């Protein structure tokens, strides 16, 4: 094909520059940086307990689902005891169970959530027991 003239070159190139700029923006933003997953700190109490409410893999991926289940059962069915898959009993409570073991919320829950950019609205009402003391 013979070389043809481009019309409105200035405007077309300006538009393309914006397009390419938007595409490579995340690459430029992170240039030379590394952003590995955060290191989580387990509190002494959790370390002593060794195990979470359920298996670690389940907790990592589905703890929000578990919390939802707990919330439903407590608020709607007035049932406060959870029996996990290995028969162990827990009181279904966000502040008194989860945050009892994971007492350093900022080093555990928050660190992970900041990285994944989730902002659970739970803390509008529920308290971190450590913070209130």
């Amino acid at each position, binding site marked *: 094909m013979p070389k043809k003239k*481009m019309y409105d070159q200035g405007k077309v190139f300006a538009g*393309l520059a914006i397009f390419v700029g938007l595409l490579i923006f*995340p690459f430029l933003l992170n240039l030379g940086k590394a*952003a*590995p997953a955060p290191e989580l700190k387990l509190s002494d109490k959790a370390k002593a307990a060794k195990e979470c409410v359920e298996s670690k893999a389940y907790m990592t991926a589905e703890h929000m*689902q578990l*919390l939802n289940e707990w919330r439903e059962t407590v608020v709607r069915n007035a049932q406060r005891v959870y029996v996990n898959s290995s028969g162990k009993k827990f009181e279904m409570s966000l502040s008194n169970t989860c945050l009892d073991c994971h007492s350093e919320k900022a080093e555990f829950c928050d660190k992970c959530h900041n990285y994944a*950019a989730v902002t659970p609205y739970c803390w509008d009402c529920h308290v971190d027991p450590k913070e209130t003391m």
Partner: protein
Amino acid sequence: MNISYLYSLIAVIVLALFAYVGSKFGGGEALFGIIFPLLAGLTFTVGFIYRIVDWARSPVPFRIPTTCGQQKSLPWIESACIENPTTTAGVVVRMILEVVLFRSLFRNTTCELKEGDKLAYRWEIWLWVGALAFHYAFFTVVVRHLRFFMEPVPVCLQFLETLDGFLQIGLPGLMLSGVVLLAAAVFLFLRRILTPHVRYISLASDYFPLFLIMGIAFSGILMRYFTKVEIVNVKAFTMGLVTLQPHIPDGIGGIFYVHLFLVSVLLVYFPFSKLMHLGGIFMSPTRNLTTDTRAKRHINPWNSPVKIHTYEHYEDEFREKMVDVGLPVDKMLEAQPPEAPEAPETPEAPEAPETPEVPEKPEVPAEPEAPEAPEKKE
């Protein structure tokens, strides 16, 4: 019967299965997680630029804006400065409204026969509603996905997420845009299937992108609400991609690769399909040209200079011979042989050939009066 949607559906299912099964084999994760997405991103960028430059090389010989308002004319006639823009500012406003609100689609009408033989035109808004919902949902989902590609994540993205999840249904909170995206894509598909005349003109290339996007939205929704992936590992993986230190973490299952592979296919398909309307809208001459054809002379850029020989010129050349054989001529005086013999040719000849050429020069947009100039002078 038009069954091209079946081919498209089968194609998307095969692609999804290919990614699901492929990612399980040794090396498959690197292939579907790193190599394909990076190649797809490259194809998308280069292909997009190629298409735009190709379009920019096509001349637009005439002003062809479509308008639906009074053109600017006499000062006491009210003109529509956005519907029928004569200024660049007007065009910019019109383009923004077109891109952001799909203004021309809003005016969509349909015609049908009523009571057998009465032709009726009706305002058809549902395509506009579906298209607007679809595009805004798609845009919101893509912007929300930026959280995987930035660290730290800007506050405005978290705000968008809060807004999108304001219904606070379930945990993880339901994101409206994801649901609207899937629903709108299904609606647009049903429209093609259920309206007979739209089905008649629909091709496999109309169904394929719809199924592809449905597949992407469906796998995403599956991953977020049902089968679950470890988001933190996904983010570590995507951050590896954008920092150009790619690695494959564990804990992200087959569905993630299906999602990612379908997105890669979408990116590769994009520049070579009707989806290029993303770039095309900005280059459509029916939208981005001013309607100033009455005020300004626009010259076809591919006009080659035409050699013309006007009658005056012709007469100058042959006047003597014409008078000799008794043909009538316009300018008798100079052509009269009995008067001064040196006079006839010199004063007239150099002037006449130049004047008719003025309007022919393509580069110089002449004044509005220019075309009439030759006649007035004589």
